[in-house]
């Protein structure tokens, strides 16, 4: 296979095989004995756009279905990326341009086969599967379109994909959050389906998560013993970000900023008090933003307590009650990172995430190599915390023994 290099030169590389690409990850997994450690990945992805022909027939509204399916005609796509993008860095991340070259066999759905390859290479036992482009669904100005797309994707995922994964994949399903009534219908319809461990607010949006209209949605999720996650993302069209001219800066700022916005509203409006049994997970924004927001909100709270009438403790204490996915873990200042782990009670609240196959994925050794973590903390971050949160069982006797050895009880 050829990749395009500078000045029209072409560079020959092997055709993509995920197992080969990740063979060094498999070596790491063997070296760390990861097969004997339960590893749960709370944030992985697939490319649902590759299967839109399978997804779109599940759209309920006939007019929207016709519009969406007609739009699949080839050759009329936009020349420019829809936002400041080039995530693959001009082919430097080879699995992007080579993705279509990877061969899969008959039998299980292609996404399941590809998923099992990277999970086995990384040493991951269970993974929470999120879409990719659907994470931007909240940006539409058509709530009915968002509702229909979420409905179709969630039906397809729970009826066609998850049943083929031998329970190794689960999901927190995207909610059509522009429409609280539709969101409630999703929770009521899909909340009891196999492999559904919670629901996800695609966080690339600016609406107030504390609005009264959402309380019934949170209550329905809490009543079912499920989790609520906020999965962040990038949006170069966001007014504040319109001056950013590199994807690196759009990415560096976008992911944390949306989570900061929603977290600030969640905490300030005392949703932790209103839904004390609802696990809330903040996904794919890294960790560096959390100490910033904890300090910032605590400072305001002490000076302006009257604006926090629902709180019974400082904002940072509510933030410590919530969960965080680990990726992308900022490791450039190890002392700062250790401080962050202390501030979020990482041993109980941090959940390993790979984000595979996206460009900035983290391997499990990103946790195992941290010099300040105890063995118990490593085991719980890699899988123990998520196993308790999502009721996931160890897959081997050795994993069970390790979980018991490093139990937090």
């Amino acid at each position: 296979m050829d990749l395009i290099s500078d000045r029209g030169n072409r560079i020959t590389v092997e055709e993509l095989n995920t197992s080969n690409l990740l063979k060094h990850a498999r070596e790491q997994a063997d070296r760390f004995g990861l097969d004997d450690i339960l590893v749960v990945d709370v944030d992985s992805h697939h490319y649902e756009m590759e299967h839109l022909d399978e997804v779109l027939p599940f759209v309920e509204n006939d007019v929207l279905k016709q519009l969406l399916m007609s739009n699949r005609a080839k050759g009329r796509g936009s020349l420019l990326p829809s936002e400041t993008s080039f995530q693959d860095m001009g082919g430097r991340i080879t699995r992007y341009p080579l993705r279509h070259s990877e061969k899969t066999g008959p039998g299980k759905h292609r996404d399941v086969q590809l998923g099992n390859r990277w999970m086995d290479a990384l040493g991951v036992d269970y993974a929470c599967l999120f879409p990719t482009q659907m994470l931007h669904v909240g940006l539409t100005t058509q709530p009915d379109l968002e509702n229909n797309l979420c409905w179709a994707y969630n039906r397809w995922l729970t009826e066609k994909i998850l049943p083929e994964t031998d329970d190794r994949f689960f999901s927190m399903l995207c909610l059509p959050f522009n429409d609280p009534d539709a969101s409630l219908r999703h929770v009521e319809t899909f909340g009891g389906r196999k492999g559904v461990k919670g629901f996800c607010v695609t966080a690339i949006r600016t609406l107030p998560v504390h609005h009264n209209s959402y309380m019934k949605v949170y209550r329905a999720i809490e009543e079912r013993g499920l989790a609520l996650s906020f999965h962040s993302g990038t949006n170069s069209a966001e007014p504040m970000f319109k001056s950013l001219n590199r994807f690196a800066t759009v990415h560096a700022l976008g992911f944390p900023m949306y989570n900061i916005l929603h977290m600030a509203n969640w905490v300030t409006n005392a949703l932790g008090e209103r839904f004390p049994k609802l696990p809330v997970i903040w996904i794919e924004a890294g960790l560096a933003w959390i100490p910033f927001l904890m300090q910032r909100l605590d400072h305001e709270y002490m000076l302006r307590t009257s604006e926090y009438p629902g709180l019974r403790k400082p904002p940072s204490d509510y933030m410590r009650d919530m969960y965080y996915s680990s990726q992308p873990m900022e490791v450039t200042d190890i002392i700062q990172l250790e401080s962050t782990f202390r501030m979020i009670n990482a041993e109980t609240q941090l959940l390993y995430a790979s984000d595979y196959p996206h460009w900035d994925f983290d391997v499990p050794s990103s946790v195992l190599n941290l010099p300040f973590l105890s063995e118990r903390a490593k085991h719980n971050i890699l899988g123990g915390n998520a196993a308790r949160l999502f009721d996931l069982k160890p897959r081997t006797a050795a994993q069970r023994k390790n979980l018991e050895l490093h139990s937090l009880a």
Partner: protein
Amino acid sequence: MPEICVAKSNDLKDGDRVIVRIGRDEVGVFRHKGSLRAYSNYCLHAGGPACEGLIIAKVEELILPDKTSDGLYFSKDETHFVCPWHGYEYDLKTGECVGNRKLKLRSYEVIERDGDIIVVS
């Protein structure tokens, strides 16, 4: 020092590379603009296959005397190889990580003798 033949000279043309195992290390051997270089194939970031990805000129930005930018261009002098896992770039001449040149891949001496390409380990 042990010498290991990793390829026939004819099999490694300019612009080519080969990945070989040498002892406990995996090594990428490059022929680029007439020179042979060999580096460990384990990326210093997360252990990815550093030598197996795209080979591409360094991207530079031309800043004019009045401090304005005249845009991006490819360097005529510096070539990088890029780890395909996350995009860490390495200088093909030195094995230095271009984001932090204090970081450097383990390098190996490469010689060409009697039609063989030989890595000295």
